[in-house]
């Protein structure tokens, strides 16, 4: 059993040399003073305009004045949000790539430094910087408190949440910075990642809001007051102060849940960055893979539960169904296949490729070796992908079953159908969509192997693999929508060719899904078969 090394932990979190050095540089000389002065002047100007427009014209009644003051407070917080969203990713994105360009990274890693120590140091220094920005803006926010727009507690909670959001931005920056060799692409990709994060969390928040409003079947929700996922959306920060959420029957302040969620997201991003910077078979890679399985399992449970709750709400208020079992299993099948496809696009091109990039070499050491599952070597990638998919399926099925321990029922009175995760596995409609997901994953994997076998450069292999997937799965969607009069809502005509069309229809098209699933498996088998001679040439080699 591994004993926790307290000395190492203390060195990492409380006396981190990287954090100390970065902090010295950040606050050194006139550069910092000029930047902070400029920041305060811009904040003052923007907030003066906001204050003027909120208070200047219509503070006739107390209620109006109160409302306007709240508006001013939100404007202040929005300004802070914009500042954090612009500054924090830049701090993270430049952190590693500039050291790589200066070639000082070699000096650091020729010392007994683990990537985790280095990345945590960068996070700590960036966190201090974000807090500095927030504290500098405190006088402006204090105006809102003094005039009655908010309370100190609410303000502090909002600051706390913004600081953790800033930390997520920095973590994204560090991740992209560890993958880049130039600062500008690192920065651009980081802003893209933050944009995607906003989109994703906003989507989750909206889904949560709909659930609260009764659209998503919140009656039996274990997170009844505010959606569990809503807490990640930065737009909800100013409102999280006075709210709570029920988790498995217990009430928790939503901001506390939010901080925990933020920390979990940061952890997985930093593990990803660490695994990129660590040598193969490094501790970070193993940790990332284990965390990946746990996180995906939990998310799959929550999605399974969410789909289950949504389906129940939809069927209880909908028309009488002729074949409720078939309908329900089809919905569950499409939801799971959709989740697997989206996840697959994120990880399969990454894990199916091998080769050399500027810094590291991923040797071909075989296609399948279950013992290498957590090592980050090529042979361990396929077993990991299979385990990952299995965890997703099991988690999803567990989520559909776990409604506080009871068995779910669907359909209006008279056509009720009881269904559990286990019983779904016996439904042909559900299995057909699983077959489609399996076909898509196998195609993704064989595309990755194909591009890796053709290109020695792993970055190029990953790009080719990803774009070939996009070309196969998404481009025909746009192409077919132009030349085919039929819409995605109805899989007819040329749309029958599209492999993902059946996942996004409101109507069940399991017949096409089955054909696509089988066809993709056959195509993948042909691709891998054609690569046999090339793969044989890549003699499995161990480093030593």
């Amino acid at each position: 059993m591994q004993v926790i090394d307290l000395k190492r932990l203390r060195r990492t979190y409380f006396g981190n040399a990287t954090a100390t050095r970065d902090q010295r540089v950040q606050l050194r000389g006139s550069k910092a003073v000029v930047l902070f002065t400029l920041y305060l002047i811009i904040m003052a100007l923007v907030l003066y305009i906001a204050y003027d427009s909120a208070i200047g014209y219509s503070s006739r009644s107390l209620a109006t004045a109160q409302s306007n003051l709240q508006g001013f407070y939100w404007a202040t917080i929005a300004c802070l949000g914009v500042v954090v969203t612009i500054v924090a990713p830049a701090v993270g994105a430049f952190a590693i790539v500039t050291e790589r360009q200066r070639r000082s990274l070699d000096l650091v890693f020729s010392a007994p430094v683990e990537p985790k120590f280095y990345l945590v140091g960068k996070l700590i220094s960036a966190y201090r910087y974000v807090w500095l920005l927030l504290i500098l803006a405190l006088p402006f926010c204090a105006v809102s408190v003094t005039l009655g727009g908010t309370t100190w507690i609410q303000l502090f909670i909002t600051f706390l949440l913004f600081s953790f959001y800033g930390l997520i931005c920095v973590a994204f920056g560090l991740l992209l910075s560890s993958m880049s060799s130039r600062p500008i692409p690192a920065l651009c990709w980081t802003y893209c990642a933050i944009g995607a994060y906003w989109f994703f969390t906003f989507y989750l928040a909206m889904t949560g809001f709909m659930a609260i409003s009764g659209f998503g079947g919140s009656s039996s929700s274990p997170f009844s007051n505010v959606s569990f996922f809503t807490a990640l959306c930065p737009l909800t920060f100013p409102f999280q102060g006075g709210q709570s959420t029920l988790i498995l029957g217990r009430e928790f302040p939503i901001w506390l849940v939010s901080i925990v969620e933020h920390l979990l997201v940061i952890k997985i991003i930093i593990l990803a960055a660490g695994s990129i910077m660590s040598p193969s078979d490094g501790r970070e890679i193993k940790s990332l893979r284990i965390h990946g399985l746990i996180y995906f399992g939990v998310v799959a449970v929550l999605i399974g539960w969410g789909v289950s709750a949504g389906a129940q709400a939809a069927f209880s208020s909908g028309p009488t169904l002729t074949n409720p079992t078939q309908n329900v299993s089809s919905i569950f099948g499409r939801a799971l296949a959709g989740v697997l496809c989206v996840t697959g696009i994120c990880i399969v091109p990454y894990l199916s490729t091998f080769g050399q990039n500027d810094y590291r070499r991923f040797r071909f050491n075989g296609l399948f070796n279950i013992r290498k599952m957590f090592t980050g070597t090529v042979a361990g990638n396929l077993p990991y992908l299979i385990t990952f998919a299995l965890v997703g399926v099991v988690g999803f099925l567990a989520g559909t079953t776990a409604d506080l321990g009871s068995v779910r029922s669907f359909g209006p009175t008279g056509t009720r159908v009881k269904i559990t995760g286990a019983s779904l596995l016996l439904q042909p409609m559900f299995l057909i969509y699983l077959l489609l997901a399996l076909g898509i994953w196998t195609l993704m994997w064989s595309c990755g192997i194909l591009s890796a076998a053709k290109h020695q450069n792993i970055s190029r292999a990953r790009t080719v693999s990803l774009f070939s997937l996009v070309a196969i799965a998404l481009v025909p969607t746009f192409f077919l929508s132009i030349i085919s009069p039929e819409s995605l809502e109805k899989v007819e005509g040329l749309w029958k060719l599209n492999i993902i069309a059946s996942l996004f229809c409101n109507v069940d098209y399991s017949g096409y899904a089955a054909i696509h699933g089988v066809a993709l498996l056959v195509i993948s088998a042909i691709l891998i078969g054609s690569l046999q001679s090339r793969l044989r040439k890549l003699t499995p080699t161990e480093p030593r």
Partner: protein
Amino acid sequence: MLEVKNLRKTYGDFTAVQGISFSLKPGDIFGFIGSNGAGKTTTIRMLATLLEPTSGTATLNGVDVVDQPMEIRRMIGYMPDFFGLYDDVKVWEYLDFFASIYGVSQRDKVIDEVLELTDLTIKKDAFVQSLSRGMQQRLCLARCLVHDPKLLLLDEPASGLDPRARAELKELIAELGRMGKIIIISSHILPELSDFCNSVGIIERGNLLAFGDVASVVRSIRPTKQINIEVLGDPDPAARFFASQTATRLGECSGNKLTIEFDGDESEQVELLKKALANEIKILSFAEDTANLEDVFMKLTTGAVS
């Protein structure tokens, strides 16, 4: 004790280092000689755990560079062929950062000591970007020394330095050798290496062509001594005399100068001179032509790169 056995590094079809082997003991200063692209930096980076060897082993005091990289990093000081200095950082802060990541206790004391050793005490509070090139080089060396390493890997440390800075660096490295550290130093400036290195290795296209102490490496390319003789007047009698002697072979003859190859020890060399004088050969000068590392390097290598 550093032991390198069949260390090899390949990138696809390209082999950067082809199974080199050597061993060094404490106090050894090993000059690693080779053209650009010969494989010196790759070897040094493998020893510094920054590159994973394709095959072979390298152990320092029994610790393997691949199996226990963190242990190895605690025992080595790596100075690359670039500075890698941070801007807006003072000299003591730079050293404090590295001392901290090496987990050095009593950092202030150690920093003062290495600054004194590298003669940078006066620049303790200066910003690193304000230092001259020679001082930056010494600061890099000071960085390598903060954790008192057993092995120093110095990749082209003298490049770009003026003669004075080079002489100071040379003296400093010699002093470190006397302190019992193993030092591997790669350089193009061959005469300097022979001054203070007690062993050398010549590498070309990833192959270690020669390894050993300087004298034995030189001997390996010229097993017999070459003696240059200058005579007064007609050189023919002298040529005839030396051609007739055992253990000598007449080499080049030009004007009143001639060269002989002599396969004997120092006392036999003295006897030969005595005999020549006794035979009334009018010798103006009689000197052994000592080969240097440059000769060895030029003879062994072809100038080809991998």
